[in-house]
């Protein structure tokens, strides 16, 4: 499953509208509860474990992709 599809599923929004700039600041559906689900779903789908520095560093979808690339799963 693509990153955008996972995010779209969790936030219940159209995955085709998700860009690298998509963030909690411009997406009201991206609240604390969905943020928690998103971390869990991404870890499960890509079989990775994020550390706290990575969680803190994320500001938008582009940052999520960068971290997944760093884990060599994207």
């Amino acid at each position, binding site marked *: 499953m693509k990153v955008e599809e996972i995010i779209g599923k969790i936030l219940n929004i159209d995955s085709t509208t998700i860009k690298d700039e998509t963030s*909690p600041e411009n997406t*009201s559906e*991206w*609240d*604390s*509860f*969905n*943020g*928690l*689900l998103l*971390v*869990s779903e991404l*870890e499960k789908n890509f079989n990775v*474990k*994020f*550390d*706290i520095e990575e*969680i*803190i*560093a*994320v500001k938008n979808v582009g940052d999520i992709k960068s971290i997944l690339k760093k884990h060599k799963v994207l």
Partner: protein
Amino acid sequence: MELRKYIERLNDNNWEQFTTFVKSWFHDRYILTIKEFVEWQYKTPFSKTSNINVFVVKIKEKVMGFLGVIPLSFNYFGKDIYGVCLANWQIDETLQSKGFGYEMLDVALSDAQIAYTTAYKPVLERLYDKTGWQVHSDKQEQMLVRRFVKIFDAEKVRKMIGKEDMVFNDVKNISANDEFKFSQVNSFNKSIDSFWESVKKKYKITVNRNSKYLNWRYKNHPMFDYKLFVTEKDDEIKAFVVVRLEKSGKYTTGRIVDFAAEDNAEEFMLNAVCKWLLEQKVDLADFSFTGDFHESTLESTGFKETNEEPYASIPYLFSPIDHKRRSTNFAFKIIDENLKNLGIATYNNFYITRGDCDQDRPNSR
């Protein structure tokens, strides 16, 4: 990612990191940097533990967020239950929308049967809504915290709100009948407990206003000087009122922060306290609360609801005077599902006054 391992209670070991975060978020003299105040507010006589009921997010020896809950005893349709008021919730921007808020809320409410909050940030509304809270805000177009005001000095209030053409009625004199006895007290003794037991059925869902609560909240407040009044008949309490005089420059406001009364003593109590406020030369009085209570008596004693002009222009905050804030939102959650067997919680039967939240608090600057 296990976020919960980063959440812990505020204690002596993380106090310094906590105040560093508070100072960075607010200012150096913010009220939550004063330990005596924090301990008073978050270690109430109703707490289930001897710990401070503030939960912090600590990452690499740095506090990056906190949520406080005030433990309280509640009356829920006649049954005493354990509830909390959410008061003060901040989280570092780098942690927002990542699950810490949800986890903090879950931890903080873990042993409560009911919870409520007022004046919460609009950004939190979605989370409250999603996690089973009943939300009352401008956005939801539902009833907010209600506010009634009574004008004592029309000229000064006109100047305060900058509307010289607004018409208010001055209060020149207030008479109270002699059926009851009105008096100021230094503390609430056990006779208030008998009063509360007899009157609490009127206030279906509310904080238990017994002597333990009232003395903790008002008599023992570490910084504010509250004025306590009772109305008696045949040596039995029939009503009480708690007032704080708030001075801001040349203006003085009498803030009624708590009030409960038997039906037939409501009018006497309000008239009597207004007479006292008139003697103190206040410019206006206000009373904020939720629910469907006291409305006709407030109107008959000269109070006006601030849901329309010119009363809507009267500031909420006087230290300093703030002309921007026009309303106070409110949300509650019934956590213990079994409570629904006792009665259904609605806005109308949920009675919370200004004193029941953290809204009547010092604003250190």
